[in-house]
């Protein structure tokens, strides 16, 4: 087994945290925040505040660091904690009386739960594929993604900016997402085939 410089730095930071240097934990959060948030985002049911769960996972990991065996797989250990945090939040949400009517169709929930054990690596690879697929989108299609996910503007405003109807904007969003989904699938298939 080889140890990468990143792994050494991580273990060094964890060692400092164990000796009481709280500030060293900042490196740990920086290193894992995006993978953890991405993985949680793909696993969480509608209504779950992903950043909140991610923060709770980090805080729990910090509080239980004495249970982690130095030199083993910290990433796997952290994601296991996050999985439990997500389950707790999901259970809490389910107990909200009108959750089903407000948020999620039951079958979507079940399908997401079926995928709950997707390894983080799969989700992170998908995120990388998505970034590449976004680059390959034409500028006018990319524009809708920017409006929707970066600027977070309303459908009405997208319609006004693009000179289309709201219904046309909705259809466009659906098609762009479908195109991205197909692109990701192609890239995943290519990666599996070793191309």
């Amino acid at each position, binding site marked *: 087994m080889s140890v990468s410089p990143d792994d050494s730095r991580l273990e060094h930071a964890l060692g400092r945290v164990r000796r009481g240097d709280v*500030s060293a934990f900042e490196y740990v959060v920086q290193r894992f925040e995006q993978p953890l948030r991405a993985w949680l985002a793909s696993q969480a049911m509608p209504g779950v505040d992903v*950043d909140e769960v991610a923060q709770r996972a980090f805080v729990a990991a*910090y509080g239980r660091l004495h249970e982690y065996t130095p030199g083993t797989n910290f990433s796997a250990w952290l994601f296991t904690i996050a999985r439990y945090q997500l389950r707790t939040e999901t259970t809490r949400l389910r107990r909200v009386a009108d959750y089903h009517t407000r948020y999620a169709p039951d079958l979507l929930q079940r399908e997401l739960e079926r995928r709950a054990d997707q390894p983080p690596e799969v*989700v992170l690879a998908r995120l990388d594929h998505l970034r590449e697929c976004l680059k390959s989108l034409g500028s006018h299609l990319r524009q809708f993604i920017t409006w929707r996910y970066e600027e*977070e503007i309303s459908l009405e405003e997208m319609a006004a900016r693009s000179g289309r109807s709201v219904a046309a904007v909705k259809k466009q969003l659906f098609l762009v997402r479908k195109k991205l989904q197909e692109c990701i699938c192609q890239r995943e298939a290519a990666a599996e085939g070793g191309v």
Partner: protein
Amino acid sequence: MTIDRFQQLWTDYLEGELGEAELAELRQLLENAPQLAEAAADSYQLHRLLGIAACDDPAVSDTFVQATMNRLPAGSSQFTGAVMQRLGTAQASRTRRLTRWLTVSAAALTLGIVSLALVLRNGGEPAGNQPIAQPAAPDAQATARLVAASHASFFGELAPPLQSILETRREYVLTEGLVELEFPSGASVIIESPAVFRVISDISLALDTGRCSVHAPEGAEGFRVETPVTRVVDRGTRFTVSVAETNETEVQVIEGVADVYRSDDDAPTAQAAPANLDQQPPDVRLTEREAYRFTAFEDGALAPVQYTPAAYRRSLPDRIIRYEAATAAGGGIQKLKSVTVQRGGREIQYPVEQLIPVELTWFKSADAVDRAGHLLGGEKLPENMAELLSDHLLTTGVINPGGSKTPLTTDPVMGADAGTPGFAVRFRQPVVNRPGPDLILMEVQTFSNPLDGDAFHVSPLKFAPGRKSHTIRRYDLTMNSPEALRLAPFSLYRYSQPIASLEQLHTATHVRANAGPRFHLLAVGIDLSDLGFAEGEQVEGLFFQDAEDDIHRVDPVFIAGFPEP
């Protein structure tokens, strides 16, 4: 047909525009065609990942990291203690296993345990590698707390949360504002920026540069402030210590007695206080109203200086200290519960029901359409928008008013055609001017806006001799304050025209958009004395204008007066 309908419903679902009937229809569709559930889950996961990919912004990551760090348990010593306890258990267990196959004498075993204990006391490292020698308690973690902060900024990090335990022997660089530390003995220290300091133990603070005011009440005698050239030991007193960049140290005793010991070697004084300091005669004993300067130069100059009692700070400035609010189901705060303010040096917590609400009586925007809109609210707006600043919901407000670079010097005009840009509020009952803040203004802010809050002018509704406008450029709770809490999601309402009156705010066409989840709630207290009102004078209303110092405008969501203390 089913697929087309699924596309429509699913897109509406992701956009949050699905009504109850349509949600039931979507549920039915998914039950009838289970393969659609898989497509829905694929699409949903992609939708969430797009949200992550769209936020590939280092600022977003930094915010997340800092927010997480702020949530770590304040008492790192407790954490270290738990680790050490576990290490101890593990080591003991290992020792027990060893005894099964090693024949050793009881004395040797005892020696081993003592050695192990020594190693553990030193954090598992050989004692010779310990960076700091502390004669009294080598690894003791101090429990000094940060109990108050005013406009405090630390170099390269957010201010620690109030009531958090500061890390022992860690260097804190206070670049702006003031902080107050409280030590377990009861000693309290107010540190003024710029300053570099470290908590050394439960009875000592190292001040490498800057100024601090110390109060050691009865029972806290012996508290020390260590500087690069002196140790100032309290003998029951109030005193100030100022350390210049040249290490020159000035000590002023306001009350009681303080002993000053000069450092006699090159070692940093803060790290090597002799255990028998109390038995040694001081180099100088200072009593009330005495002040001395100690220099680091080889001539060893020690000289009396002018006594300046004004340098001693008994408390932090009056300000909004914190607020409490109920959290929404999806996370983020939503409804105000109480406000804690320091007025006239006294900390007071007001439940929101005791605050004096306001009514919006005038609103005029700038001449151009504001793309961020003028109203904050939920999915529906109330009929009377004049209440948006007084309801207890922090996700409702009247934002982006007009303004002026120059503050008002005459009465604002509130007529339909030639009104003054800005907004006016009337208190439900007059607010009486008392020492310290008399009202609170809270605004929503995100990290792409000014971190200190959006500057604004506040003016009397009626000018009179002595009355004036006052400009707020820095809030008491800023984006750098751990007490500025994250807000629940809300909606923005944008108009297609500039707003020239309160009536237009109600009647003009507007469209709704969801705001992002990264807004925080800042707060500032306003002292009516700053507007020229006399102590005890009653104020019925005020006029607010954006200061137009940048492209960002003030975004108030709550304004209220404080009742008489």
